[in-house]
């Protein structure tokens, strides 16, 4: 399956900005089951200098310095990505087949194993996901009994989030604490992903934040409008000796071809699509347009996926000058 993705992020500033440093992360990751066929980025206004680098989580970053006076900064990423569902399905089969129990996983993680080292980066609190409360830990333990199979437990855990939490945009933003989401049982995809990660880490399991896109379909009989999609988020849990298993609690599905991964990290902050620091006065806001389009015609009815929008997230620091 080939997807064309259009992702435009715009910072709007209240007053003129003459000097701004930014980092964008809009280039999708290359994976065995995901091939980046094409990628281009457009930036408005023009860039004074830019520099690309790969971060610790393997994501493509681009550092941009803008020195032209501007009141908005628009960064558009256009990618053409091929996803191979057969590989994903095969991966899921292997994960299921080789999965171990929760207590086996904990036992193994307490020992030194070369293969597990990378996953251990995702065991601890991070900027947006601090160590969770006892209540969240308790919520997770309801699915993770000692003798329970890890894959099955996580699948059930995902389902509980799907049914216990209400999808509601506007309730939260990027700074809303996980504990608040848990209390209100409301939020959007990134809240659910971060809540799940918080809960899994609290019971000693490595979990990471997956950021990307999902194809959405218009109501039956209607044509799809451009730009109605949103960026999406889900999570992955580490099953020692087996690998990372991905789950999408917003839609209660195990990603198997509709998800396109942009990048991954400990939480949203590690993979925010655009962040920047400007010297200016006044406030700023962010607008986002995302479109995901499949190139080949659908041959069977796809999964019913809610059009669950994630909120626009602003990671912008304005350094006030008088």
């Amino acid at each position: 399956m080939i997807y064309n993705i259009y992702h435009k992020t715009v910072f709007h500033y209240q007053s003129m900005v003459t000097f701004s440093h930014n980092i964008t992360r809009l280039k999708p990751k290359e994976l065995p089951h995901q091939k980046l066929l094409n990628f281009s980025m457009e930036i408005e206004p023009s860039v004074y200098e830019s520099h690309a680098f790969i971060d610790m989580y393997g994501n493509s970053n681009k550092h941009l310095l803008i020195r032209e006076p501007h009141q908005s900064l628009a960064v558009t990423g256009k990618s053409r990505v091929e996803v191979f569902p057969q590989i994903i399905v095969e991966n899921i089969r292997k994960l299921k087949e080789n999965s171990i129990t929760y207590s086996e996983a904990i036992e193994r993680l307490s020992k030194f194993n070369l293969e597990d080292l990378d996953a251990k980066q995702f065991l601890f609190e991070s900027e947006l996901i601090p160590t969770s409360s006892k209540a969240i830990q308790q919520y997770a333990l309801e699915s993770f009994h000692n003798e329970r199979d890890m894959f099955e437990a996580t699948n059930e855990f995902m389902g509980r989030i799907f049914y216990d939490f209400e999808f509601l945009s506007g309730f939260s933003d990027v700074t809303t604490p996980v504990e608040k989401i848990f209390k209100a049982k409301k939020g959007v995809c990134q809240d659910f992903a971060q809540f799940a990660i918080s809960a899994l880490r609290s019971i000693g399991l490595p979990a990471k934040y997956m950021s990307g896109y999902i194809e959405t379909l218009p109501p039956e009989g209607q044509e799809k409008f451009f730009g109605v999609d949103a960026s999406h988020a889900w999570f992955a849990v580490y099953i020692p000796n087996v690998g990372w298993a991905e789950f999408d609690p917003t839609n209660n599905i195990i990603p198997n071809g509709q998800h396109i991964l942009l990048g991954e990290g400990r939480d949203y902050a590690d993979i925010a699509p655009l962040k920047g620091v400007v010297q200016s006065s006044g406030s700023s806001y962010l607008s986002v347009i995302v479109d995901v389009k499949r190139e080949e015609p659908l041959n069977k009815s796809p999964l019913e996926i809610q059009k669950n929008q994630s909120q626009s997230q602003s990671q912008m620091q304005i350094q006030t000058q008088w």
Partner: protein
Amino acid sequence: MPIFDSYVLKSSCDEMFDREKKVKEPWKEVAQSLKSVGFEALQERQAEIDWLLEDNGVTYNVYNSIEGNTNRSWSLDPIPFVISELEWSEITKGLQQRAKLLNLILKDLYSEQKLIKENIIPAEVIFSHKGFSPEVYDFGLKKNFNLYFYATDLARGPDGKMWVINDRTQAPSGLGYAIENRLAMNVIAKELYPNIETKKLFSFLEEFKNMFKKFKLNEDSVAALLTPGPYNETYFEHSYLSSFLNIELVQGEDLLTKNGSLWLKNLGGLKRVDTLIRRVDDRYCDPLELKNSSKLGVAGLVDVMRQDNLNMINPVGSAILENIGLNPFMEKASQYFLNETLILPQIATWWCGQEKELEFVLENLDKLIIKRIDRTESVQVYFCKKMSETEKEDLKSLLLQSPNQYVAQEEISFSTVPYYADKTVEPRSATIRTFSLKSDDCYSVMSGGLVRVSSIKDALLVSSQKGGTSKDLWILGKEEKEINFVNMFENAKYSDTLINNLSTLKAENLFWLGRYLSRLITTTRFVLHIVKKMTNFYRYEGMISKESQEILQKALTHLTMTYPGFFSDENRKKLERNPMIEIASVVKDGSRAGSLSFTFSMLSNTNINLKDILAIDSTKVYEKMKKEWSGFAKKTTHSNISMANELERMLIYMLAYKGLVKESIYKEQGLILYDIGYNIESALLFISKARSILCWHVEKSVEYDILEGLLNSVESFNAYRAKYKSSLLLENVIEFLIFNRQFPKSLAYRTEELMRALKLLPKSKDSLSSYEKPMAEANLLLQSLNIKEMMKRNDNEALYFEFDNALTTLSELYIACSDEFSKTYFSHYDE
């Protein structure tokens, strides 16, 4: 009374005395000296030290503020901490080994991570610690990524050896205080301890300076010390150390990054920074890639490191070495990298992430201190001995739940040292901070250090909070080289007087100091006039008419841009009945942009940033004014008369402050920037008032009132009378305040002043610069205008249309000048 009679040994180990209370060998001279001089002389020497330190505070402009808060966090004891040459050479070897090892660990953790992959250090100990920076994960093998400067806290353990207590790696502090202490001790030592010879700090400090020289890229590149700024309580040390090492003292706002490099912003242009020593913690160094909310760093700094274009002392990421969880693995790491055992002992530490260790810790909880390992600052510590059974049970379940987050340490009592406290000498616990510097493959250790003494008599632990006392560390022995101490300050530069080298941050603050001060004074005068008129203060001139009052009130709203203010339709009735409500709000409501309180707090920000330029007197006046203002702003009710009185009093402070600012700094030092700001703001505010007051045709009686108001608000009534003598005429007032080239407050005069000042700036050229053009245009406009022509008016219109147009154009030209000026000099737009 003999000096040591009341000295009762408290701990198992004392530095000066053995168990039989015999003086130990290295201390014999010190003890002899103290016995022979007695308390009185000791008291005198203490007073001398206090005076010397106080004097340093004054020199570096860190004085006690009016409220009595002291900015100095240290005092110095006249009794040194003595260590023999022999013992010190062993300690030196241990410190060199530890520094080398930590540097290898640092480079490995941020590159291959062999230590983790080969199970020397558990992954959990590294990844759970906040000091591990994923942003620099692959910088370890870069040429400039090194632990250049390293501080170690040592204390003597029960076995009589010096133990490592803490490693300070990300932004080690204390060297400035150590130097200051030594210079103060040198003064009193000649009399107090005439027969003692100690090692000098000189060669270490020379090496430090040489390091900066070695890293120098070219003639113009500079080394800098990054400080969190004057609000920080250790700013004194930053200021002292930077001038001692002869490097620039900078804040984040002084710097910018571009072309993959770090630059210092000066009025004359950008200067490349090749070396940065910092007092800002890792996570605060770069708001772009590290902590987004930080105001202390510079955006893009991590990327400069990525390009390997900066020697950072120490690199972002070095906070990981302050991880107490590394302790249990240091021995293994030393074997792995150096094939050596650790020379300096550490406090026995157990990482609970291992089965056997956890078991041991749970069984011996009462003898241990438990610490969380994930933070560098404010580490959570549990003293198990003092905990209740339930607390201990809770702790146990925490340990079982996430064992890899905790370490346990032995509780140790460290040695005591004699300390002079108000007519008695008593034993206190102490730790020593030592300093090491990387030179090529080896580390040099300073022959001295900063000794911190516990602030309470019986405290076992030395608190690192401010308000502690310190000692100088004396290593006995002859210096191999003869050094003349006076020369230490020899190549310290005098503060740069060239305007080219004035930092952009300072320049910008001076410019805004001028603008805010003008705004404050002008607005205060205008409000004062309105209030006085309302209270019929000028009794002999009778009541002001309602119409003129309204004109002045609306002019106030325009002037302060506190809309809707007196233009509010909603509150119209209320405002007519009691205009004081609105006036009081424009004066005191600090949350309202444009109010006097608001302007005052803006002025405060600029004032504090200029602390080291302004004279102490002006800062004192400022502090006093600030205190008075906050008292005044807190009062909720005022009669008109008391409001007028208070404003009058504040105005006097403002004028005194202004006078001191003007006379305490000279032009090249930045007064020029202040003048430019002051003139631009004064011109803009005057035009605002003129448009409200002079541009409308009104009845003669009203005209008289408002012209008087305008003249009074620029304190020009007497000058006007001296020239025109006659009664107030609109044309005369316009001539006087706008066109008169002899009167310093007229627009024409200010414009000429500005043109002169702008010519003196570093980027000035033969042709007109972008910021000079508007002023040249304004000057031409002022020359070409003819009052008679300008004041023509159709009978059915109240507005002097031409005049208003001219004022609008002038206002735009001043704004254009200010904008272009800011762009060129503060944003470094074309560099």
